[in-house]
């Protein structure tokens, strides 16, 4: 893939911030689970959440290749922050693809004022099985009334606006799902349990509860009953973001492992001189590079409006599996030190795990990929 000067310039800006301001404190936030408010404020000021907001609504709307390049950069430093930005970008995609001009103005206005968006699909009994969504939206005059609880919601406690997938007809399963946007400050919206997670601990994950929450009828995005379709379209693009972020994480693990292997002396020489380590490093880099090319190829398909969905799933599947494998191997190269919290490796391994689970588990990705293959 060709990296243009413009791409590099934007990436370098984000990289310099993350390297100078985030790297030194990431371990502390990971350990105490506190929300890094200043970091988020700075990044929102910088506008990293506006990459998928159209320029006519004061956003940046850059091409997918540059977006993935930036996603890779963020993943290199912290996948929790990456997840927060990625989740917000997904919500923007739903609105951009299916919202009206009036809705976009309102929704994107909340983002340009310095807030993140959040995508609320998952429920306690509706993970991979979206047909089991129980949150309901009932039309009452000129308003919809929302009731239900969403869980594991990235940015749940910090977002300024939510995209909510709720059922307008429980009897129809996924065909009864509809998409809405709901402002955080609306009456009837509250934030429930804050999750204490294994990894991506610099992200905010909560329950979002709707109790007789009334929203104007015009907060319905697109048509009733199309919510599942919209959600799948949205995830179709956002999955590649996870793939790119995973590549960044894997590359960082490799870079750290190389540095360590060169300095760690056993049996009288650095362990990097041992073929056992060299072969591990070679495999790690080969797998990461393959995942990287897949992510950028999927981005290229998106940019040229070609059918990308299967590739986006492949990028997510491959990227996250590679990140898991590579971070595990990197811990192995660090040996006992890799297992200790004093070193950066164990956090990377914990962060990698979620990438195989969220935005559709890797099993669901295989369903999507094979579905595409067999429908031809």
């Amino acid at each position: 893939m060709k990296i243009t000067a413009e791409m590099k310039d934007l990436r370098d800006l984000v990289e310099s911030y993350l390297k100078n301001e985030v790297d030194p404190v990431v371990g502390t936030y990971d350990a105490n689970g506190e929300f890094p408010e200043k970091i988020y404020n700075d990044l929102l000021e910088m506008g990293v959440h506006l990459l998928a907001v159209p320029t006519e609504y004061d956003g940046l709307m850059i091409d997918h290749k540059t977006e993935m390049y930036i996603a890779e950069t963020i993943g290199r430093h912290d996948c929790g922050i990456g997840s927060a930005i990625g989740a917000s970008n997904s919500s923007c995609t739903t609105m951009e693809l299916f919202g009206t001009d009036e809705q976009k103005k309102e929704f994107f206005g909340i983002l340009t004022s310095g807030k993140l968006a959040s995508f609320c699909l998952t429920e306690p009994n509706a993970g991979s099985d979206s047909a089991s969504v129980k949150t309901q939206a009932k039309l009452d005059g000129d308003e919809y009334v929302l009731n239900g609880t969403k869980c594991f919601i990235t940015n749940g406690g910090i977002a300024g606006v939510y995209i909510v997938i709720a059922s307008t007809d429980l009897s129809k399963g996924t065909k009864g799902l509809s998409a809405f946007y709901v402002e955080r400050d609306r009456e009837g919206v509250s934030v429930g349990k804050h999750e204490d997670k294994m990894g991506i601990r610099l992200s905010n994950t909560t329950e979002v509860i709707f109790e007789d929450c009334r929203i104007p009828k015009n907060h319905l995005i697109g048509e009733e009953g199309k919510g599942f379709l919209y959600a799948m379209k949205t995830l179709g693009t956002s999955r590649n973001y996870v793939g790119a972020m995973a590549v960044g994480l894997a590359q960082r693990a490799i870079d750290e492992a190389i540095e360590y292997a060169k300095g760690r002396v056993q049996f009288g020489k650095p362990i990097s001189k041992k073929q056992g380590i060299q072969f591990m490093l070679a495999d790690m880099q080969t797998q990461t590079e393959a995942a990287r090319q897949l992510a950028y190829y999927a981005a290229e398909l998106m940019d040229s409006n070609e059918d990308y969905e299967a590739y986006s799933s492949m990028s997510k599947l491959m990227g996250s599996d590679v990140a898991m494998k590579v971070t595990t191997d990197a811990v192995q190269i660090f040996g006992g030190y890799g297992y200790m919290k004093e070193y950066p490796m164990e956090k990377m391994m914990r962060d990698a795990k979620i990438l195989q689970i969220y935005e559709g588990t890797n099993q669901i990705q295989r369903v999507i990929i094979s579905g595409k293959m067999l429908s031809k």
Partner: protein
Amino acid sequence: MNILVCIKQVPDTTEIKINPVTNTLMREGVASIVNPFDSYALELAVRLKEKQGGKVTVISMGPPQAKVALKECLSVGAEEAYLLSDRAFGGSDTLATSYILSSFIKHLEKENGKFDLVMCGKQAIDGDTGQVGPEIAEHLGLAQVTYATDIKVEDDKTLIKRENDQGYDWIQVLTPAVITVTKSVFEPRYATLKSKIAANKAEIEVLNTESIDIDLEKCGLKGSATKVMKSYTPIKDNNGIVIKEETASASVKSLMNLLVDNKVI
């Protein structure tokens, strides 16, 4: 306030390597940055503008690639940027450089009106002379304050916080004036992605000896009062002696004995 900031593009010294054979700096592949003290000067200028209103203009003398540094300045709050680039400027020492910059400042003032403040970093991290700022003030016949870390404007009075060995002074200065800036608590801001995109699209006007009124005899090698005879990396000398006794006074005693024994004093 109409503020001008002079900046220089310098190699990122944190990445510099020395060629072990020739003992010279290896510039290839080393990233270029805006001289850090100039970034502090720009940050102070932009903060002042945000409070007082006005405009910040940035200039630089250097090769065409210095446009990148000027674009960086546009992305963090400067409104306008000009590059002065001409082969005739090559080899300029600080005297020639400050003459060229001051001629350019006069040229800009003819078109844009007087600058209230001309700001520079206290020195560039490559040459480390710290002379260009004060020399610009002399060429322009303006007051100067060096080692500034903050600027305040109160009821038409311009006050400069100047660092000294003991602490700092607040100095009132008549404008227009030249201020050289050192590292302060006001860390240079990060650009936003939006300002970065806009700055990348901006066209930087490049001026040369034909665009401004300038005496070529005072430029480049011809106009330089100093000549560089040789650049080299000092050889690391490990012959030093470390004196570290239990107490400071015991260390002083050892040092004195050593100096007397070796007939240094």
